[in-house]
Structure formats: structure tokens, C-alpha cells
């Protein structure tokens, strides 16, 4: 019910605010003194409050990097947990400055829903999880199975598409909330559960015996996850895009949270000197000062550090980096040149 109220209030905002009265998000954030980040309602690894109530996670760190670059303080943030249905409209209506919430970049969302995607932070794909005791080793064996799924995402569409393309007869039980959907799967209502593989790994950590559940090898969809901002504010889109891009570039160049200050002072590499503001004026390209990226890296580290903190071998989840490795290592992460 609360979700619905929030949702309707967004719509009311849409109908009440004066037409095209939106100013610059950058100015707005500076005036407010904080950044409003749309996050999930609690997906371990991506965005979830820790035991002291502080939001942590991969998606959260992307937002903190932007806050550090723009405001100089990654704690000056407000978090708005969004249901899947709300994640687009919350940003298009100006309720949040950025949505960083495991959101798939699709054509319709980008072109027709009043938002712009910034840059891909995670290459994900939809997969299936089934109890080991069922004896299923491939998605193709799921004919006749019941599958639990969460509403309001591309997940249901992918599920139906995959079933039709492969001649499988799958029965979907659709829930409004992820917790309810996964809970129904755990209690045996469904033979399988489907969502993005990263989230399968994340949810698996929450059950009593994670080893009793198998993530099937097939990936049935492409899910490039990217933070999104309101359509039409190019300055703000540039800032978010280039801060995140800078984190990837930092990993490529071996700049870490620990050595960033030392690198800025001593590095002879012109690429590093430019991006860290020791020479040139790249910060001014996005209307920020020259230390913008230094602050971001100081706060959250480079892309690889962020990934390892939340998904690495030592984390609770452990999602192998796969496609999210740097291009040099055979992955798809390829930072654009900062110059």
C-alpha cells in the first residue's frame, strides 16, 4: 500500500509541477546540499542498509562517487528505496536525482520514458535457480515447471519470450515484491525462481542452506545495468557518466583508493596526470573543479575495488567477474578516454 501511495504521489507531482520548470539538477543538488539517490528496497550487494542503517552496496557506491565529485562529501546523500515499478518514473518526475538500482538499459526506456541512461556499470543476464534435489541441470528441462517471478520488470517478459522461443510450457506465478516471490519459491510453491543472475546469487545468500539451490547455466537475456537520470539535462548526464567512467579508467591505470593522492603528486604518466587534475582542466568540461575524480576514487576506490568489495571472492555473494572484467582481461569494461 505504501508503495502505491508513493507511486500516486509521483504522478500527482507530475500533474502539479509547472510545465518545463525543471532547472539544472547540478544547481539543484548544490543548493539542496545533498544528492537524492533512488535505490532498491534491499538487494544484498547492490543496495541495502547495513546493521547501523547506512546504505551500502555496488549501486550505492556509484552514487557516493558522484556525491563526492559534486559536493565533496559522499555522506551528503538521501536514499529513496524504490519498487521496481517506480524506478523510472521517480527519476523522470524529479523525485530523485539519479536512480542507481539494477535497471536494465532498454530502447523504450531510453527513448520514450523521459530518462537517459548514463553508462553500463554491470553486465548482467537473467537466469534460473532451482532446488538441487529437483535434479534439474539445464533450463531446457523445465518444461511443465512453475516459476516464481517479480512483477514490474523485464523479467516476466524475458521468461515468456524464452518459453515461447523454446517451446517450453512454463507457468509463472507473479508477485509484487521480490521478498514475497522468493519466499514462495523457498516454501516450494514454484519449481524455479528467475531474475538476473547477480540477484540470484544475492538472494541465495539469504536462505538457510544456500548450497541446496543451483543456479542453472543458461543466461536467457542481456541485462546491461546502468544508472539513469532525467531526460534533457545533458550537463547532469555528463557528470554521472564521466564520474563512473573515471572509476573504470582508474582501474585500467592502477589508481586505487590507497594510492590516488600519491599518484596525483608523483605520476609521470600524462593520462593519469590529466584525469587526476595534475595537469589540464578536464574537471571544467563537466562544470566541476579539477579534483572531482580524486575525491570520487578516494571515497569508493576504482571500479575493480568496488566490485570486489561487494561481489569479490571475500564477499558474501561471490559473483565471478565474467563480462565485468576489464577489456584487457577479456571482459567488456572499456573506459572512454578522459581528455
Amino acid at each position, binding site marked *: 500500500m505504501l508503495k502505491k501511495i508513493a507511486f500516486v504521489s509521483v504522478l500527482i507531482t507530475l500533474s502539479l509541477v509547472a510545465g*518545463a520548470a525543471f532547472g539544472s539538477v547540478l544547481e539543484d543538488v548544490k543548493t539542496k546540499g545533498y544528492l537524492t539517490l533512488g535505490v532498491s528496497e534491499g538487494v544484498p550487494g547492490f543496495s541495502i542498509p547495513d546493521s547501523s542503517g547506512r546504505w551500502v552496496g555496488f549501486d550505492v557506491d556509484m552514487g557516493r562517487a558522484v556525491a563526492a565529485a559534486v559536493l565533496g562529501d559522499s555522506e551528503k546523500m538521501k536514499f529513496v528505496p524504490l519498487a521496481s515499478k517506480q524506478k523510472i518514473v521517480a527519476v523522470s518526475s524529479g523525485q530523485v536525482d539519479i536512480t542507481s538500482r539494477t535497471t536494465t538499459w532498454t530502447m523504450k526506456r531510453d527513448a520514450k520514458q523521459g530518462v537517459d541512461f548514463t553508462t553500463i556499470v554491470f553486465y548482467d543476464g537473467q537466469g534460473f535457480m532451482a532446488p538441487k534435489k529437483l535434479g534439474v541441470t539445464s533450463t531446457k528441462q523445465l518444461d511443465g515447471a512453475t516459476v516464481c517471478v517479480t512483477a514490474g520488470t523485464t523479467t516476466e517478459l524475458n521468461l515468456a519470450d524464452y518459453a515461447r522461443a523454446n517451446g517450453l510450457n512454463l507457468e509463472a506465478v507473479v508477485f509484487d515484491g521480490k521478498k514475497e516471490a522468493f519466499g514462495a519459491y523457498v516454501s516450494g510453491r514454484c519449481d524455479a525462481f528467475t531474475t538476473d543472475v547477480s540477484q540470484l546469487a544475492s538472494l541465495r545468500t539469504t536462505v538457510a542452506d544456500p548450497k541446496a539451490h543451483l543456479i542453472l547455466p543458461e543466461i536467457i537475456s542481456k541485462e546491461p545495468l546502468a544508472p539513469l537520470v532525467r531526460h534533457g539535462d545533458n550537463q547532469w548526464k555528463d557528470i554521472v557518466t564521466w564520474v563512473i567512467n573515471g572509476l573504470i579508467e582508474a582501474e585500467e591505470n592502477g589508481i586505487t583508493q590507497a594510492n590516488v593522492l600519491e599518484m596525483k603528486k608523483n605520476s609521470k604518466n600524462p593520462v593519469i596526470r590529466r584525469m587526476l587534475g595534475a595537469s589540464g582542466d578536464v574537471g571544467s568540461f563537466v562544470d566541476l573543479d579539477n579534483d572531482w575524480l580524486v575525491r570520487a576514487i578516494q571515497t569508493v576506490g576504482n571500479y575493480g575495488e568496488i566490485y570486489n568489495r561487494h561481489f569479490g571472492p571475500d564477499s558474501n555473494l561471490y559473483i565471478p567477474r565474467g563480462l565485468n572484467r576489464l577489456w584487457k582481461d577479456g571482459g567488456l569494461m572499456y573506459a572512454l578516454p578522459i581528455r
Partner: protein
Amino acid sequence: MATYFDKKQVTRLLLQAVVTGGIIYTAYTLFLNTQANLAARNIASGFGFLSVEAGLPISNSLLPYTPSDSYGYAFLVGVINTLHVSFLGILAASAIGVLIGIARVSRNWLISNLAAVYVEILRNIPLLLLLFFAYGVVLAGLPHPRASLQPGWGAYLNNRGFYLPRPIFQDGFGWVAAMFGLTLVMAILLWRWAVGYHRRTGRYIPAGWLGCILIIGMPALTVWLTGTPLTWEKPVLRGFNFQGGMVLRPEFSALMIGLVLYTAAFIGENVRSGIQSVDAGQIDAARSFGVRPGIIMRRIVLPQALRVIVPATTNDYTSLVKNSSLAVAIGYPDMVSVGGTIIGQNDQAIEIIGMWMAVYLCINLIISTLMNWINARVQLTER
């Protein structure tokens, strides 16, 4: 004529016109503003999407549905599911509510207190919790399909649903149906005649029992004569789950249990207050004439109590319809669930929310109209 256009009247009319105009102007401005904002933000609007292929899965549908059907049809499937739940829910909640209400005023201490406990518990917890509880109990209490409970007659009960054999009508079944219709008409005629006979002579004929025997016996005889024109398709365990037969899904069952028990508590209170609004002196008077308790209830209490019960119950019926939108929380594909998925796929939230509101408004206006009609019929007719 002169008084017709007197000053006060004109002022009053003018004032009303100004207020109405103001409301219309505000609504129109809001509408235009929303459209301008949507256009400025490059957000698609309009109802063109309804004819686009939906692609979303819906289990538990009364209408035949495949993902290649359109968004509009998918939404209709959801509307039909909402109507299905609402209709059955209203019937069941009324039946249980009347029983609870009568039990509440019973002179048996145990019965009246049990009913009171029921009412106080059920109407004082949020419906959403009740639904989660019912769903949890249904799921936790039932085994996996491979270990199904077997109540007999080819029925199976597991956490995927309650599977029953499906009747398949063969050629001769038309005769059985015809015989059923015929005996039904005969039974009604018999009953009306028996009532008249009772009035004229005071003698009592057990027309109800005779009618029942007629309605059940004659079609049964026809079944035997035509050589069982009815076969059953039994559900069989194949792969992950049972195939064939009819199925009652846990989501539907839990939703019905939650809605019905919750609403019945409110209806029970309406019935109680209705019964208690009838002057106790009338009941005492009837009893002193030796009228039987059943007749007192039917002929003296209920006709007067209904005047109190009906308007209050109209509210509960409309609440039940609106509450059925909580189905989305426990995975039943009602109109809100399907519409939510459509929003998730194409983000045309304003259109879908508009459709939700229109459908709920229509259903509840129909209920109100029907109930008002009933109310008018049971109103006290002053002579």
C-alpha cells in the same frame, strides 16, 4: 412568476455556476498541465499500446490467454479475475456474515461469545497480514506435488493447488440437463401451490423435501437411462506437476479465505445491529402467541432488520471489491497485478491507473445501484 426570478434565487444559481465552473477549470488545467509535462519529458502517452502484443505470462486465468495476446486483452483477463474474486467473495462473505451475525445474538453463551471473538479478531487486524498469513498457512501446510494428499475420487491436494477431476459432457447429457430444468420448474410450481394450500386449509405439505427429491431423483434416473453421458478427466502427475483436471490455485484460495473471513466479520456486525434494532417487545409478543423461533426470525425480525443491514453492507461489498487489489501481494493475477506488469513493461502509468479507477468505479457503482434497489424494496412502506 415574479417570485420565480427573485433575487435570492438568482444569486444562489450564480454562485453555484461559479463554483462548478471553478472545479471544471481546475480539472482541465490539471489535465493540460499533465499532458504538457509528459510531452516536455518525452514520455509516451495515449492508449495505442493496448493493441500491442503483451508478451507477459498470466497463470490462473478464466479466459484462454497466451503471451501473444494484446495488452488490452491481458488487462481484460485481469478484470475478469477481479470480478470472479469479487463475486464469489461477496456471496461467501454474505453467507458467513449472516451466520456470524445471528450467532452473535444467540442466547447460547458459547455460540455468541465464539462469534464475538471471531469478529473482534478478524476486523481488528490488517487484511494484508491476514492474506500473508492465509497464504503462508496454505503453502506451509501442503506437501510437494510428488507427495500429494489424496482425499479420494481422483482429487489431489498439494502446494500447487487442489486438483479435481474435470467433468466432460458426452452426447446424451443434453437430456439430463433438460430433465433438470423441467423438474426445477415443477418443484417451483409445487412449492407455490403448497403455500397457497397451506393458507387456504392450514394443512402443511412438505413441498421443499418433495421438490428436492424431484430435482435430484429425475435427472439421476435420466443419467442411468441414457447410460452415463458424463466422464471425468482425472489429473495425473506428469513431470513437475499435475496435468489435466480442474485446479484451485493456492493464491486464489488464500485470497478468497482472507477476503471472505475479513469481510464476513463486518457483515456479521451489520446483521447483529440490524437484529438488535428490532424492538424486543415484538419478539416477546410473537413468542407469547406460540410462533416458532424460525418463523419469528423470517417473518418478524429479518424484514425490519434488513432496513438497517442493507445500507451498511453495501459499504462492505464495495470494500471487498477494492480490497481484492491486495491480490498482487500474494501472486494472484487480478487487474492490479496485470496492470502493474504492463506499467513495468511500458511505463504508461497514468493510462493504466486511469483504467484501474474506471473499472473499480464501474463495479462499485453497479453494486451500489443494485443494493439501493434492494434497499428501496425492503424499506418501510408507510400506509
